[in-house]
């Protein structure tokens, strides 16, 4: 009995979630894409699905929506916080915003590097403005590092240098940033 009720509730939530999605997309597409954390394709498709299909889609024993907080740390820092309600609301908004962006970044990165071995520090990925800028900064940093290395090494035999060059190339390949 109890589980039947619960399953009914889940289906109900599914349906209202789908309907809400559609309504949001049809009123303000851009804002909806941000609020629902979905991309262009998904938004297009969702706005076109007829209600009868949505009902069929909602008839599922698992929830279609997904919990947006990444881990227990985040939940903890929102629940435990002794700040007032307004601050908590803003905090939740910031966390959701940055989670979404990080997820989108990861998705893009993995698309870009499909098939390549993925190494290197994660720190770079979830910081700074998107696309060009961070790549530029990273390249500049690498150049500086390389320059400093060269300066430190001082004059050396040409053979040594060539060898070093080879290993460095390997290193860069392993890094996978210049793919």
């Amino acid at each position, binding site marked *: 009995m109890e589980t039947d009720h619960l399953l009914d509730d889940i289906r109900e939530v599914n349906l209202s979630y789908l309907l809400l999605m559609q309504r949001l997309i049809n009123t303000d597409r*851009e*804002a909806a*894409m*941000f*609020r629902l954390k979905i*991309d*262009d394709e998904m938004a297009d498709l969702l706005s076109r699905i007829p209600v009868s299909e949505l009902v069929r889609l909602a008839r599922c024993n698992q929830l279609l929506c997904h919990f947006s907080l*990444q*881990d227990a*740390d*985040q939940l903890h*820092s*929102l629940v435990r*916080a002794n*700040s007032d309600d*307004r*601050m908590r*609301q*803003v*905090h939740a*908004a*910031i*966390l959701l*915003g*940055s*989670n*979404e*962006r*990080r997820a*989108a*970044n990861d998705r*893009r990165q993995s698309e870009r590097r499909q098939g390549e071995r993925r190494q290197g520090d994660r*720190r770079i990925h*979830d*910081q*700074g*403005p*998107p696309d060009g*800028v961070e790549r530029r*900064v990273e390249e500049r940093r690498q150049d500086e590092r390389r320059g400093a290395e060269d300066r430190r090494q001082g004059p050396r035999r040409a053979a040594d240098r060539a060898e070093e060059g080879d290993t460095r190339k390997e290193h860069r390949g392993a890094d996978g940033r210049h793919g």
Partner: protein
Amino acid sequence: MTEKSVIDEGRQISLAIEMIQLGARLQVLQTETGISRRRLINLYKEIHGESPPKGMLPFSTDWYVTWLPNIHSSLFYNVYLSLAAHPNRDRMQSVVSAYRLYLDQVPLGDDGKPVLGLTRAWMLVRFFESDMMTLSTCQRCHGSFVNHALSLDRDFVCGICQPPSRAGKTRKKKAAARMTH
């Protein structure tokens, strides 16, 4: 610049109107639209009924790392980044929509104005574009927060997880609390 498209001009004017309504200063409009200064001043006067404020724009990056402004600008910038990530979208349009979404989520300040104005939001985007600011990840809540570029942020903890001791306790609020009791 010899050929002017009327449609393009119309689009720019409507963007300018939207921005003025949201409280953009004249310098923002001059940088972001191709409309002449004289027409912009006329627009401003028509919308607000007064001359645009004079003087320089707020140019300090320090404002963004103080407690409350930091929280608000982090919220705005997170929204902006997720909007700007979509391809083929106009940059200024993203700023404006991100700002609207930001306004939806925050309560107004004590003086009835949002903590982060559109002009400041735009300056923040420009600071990021010129690598003067960066996003640091809070070690407790894993949220991204606005910070000075090249700052040491390995142990960064945000202003909400660890508020400074007297944050948000202004004299005005105390007085208001006393009045209600």
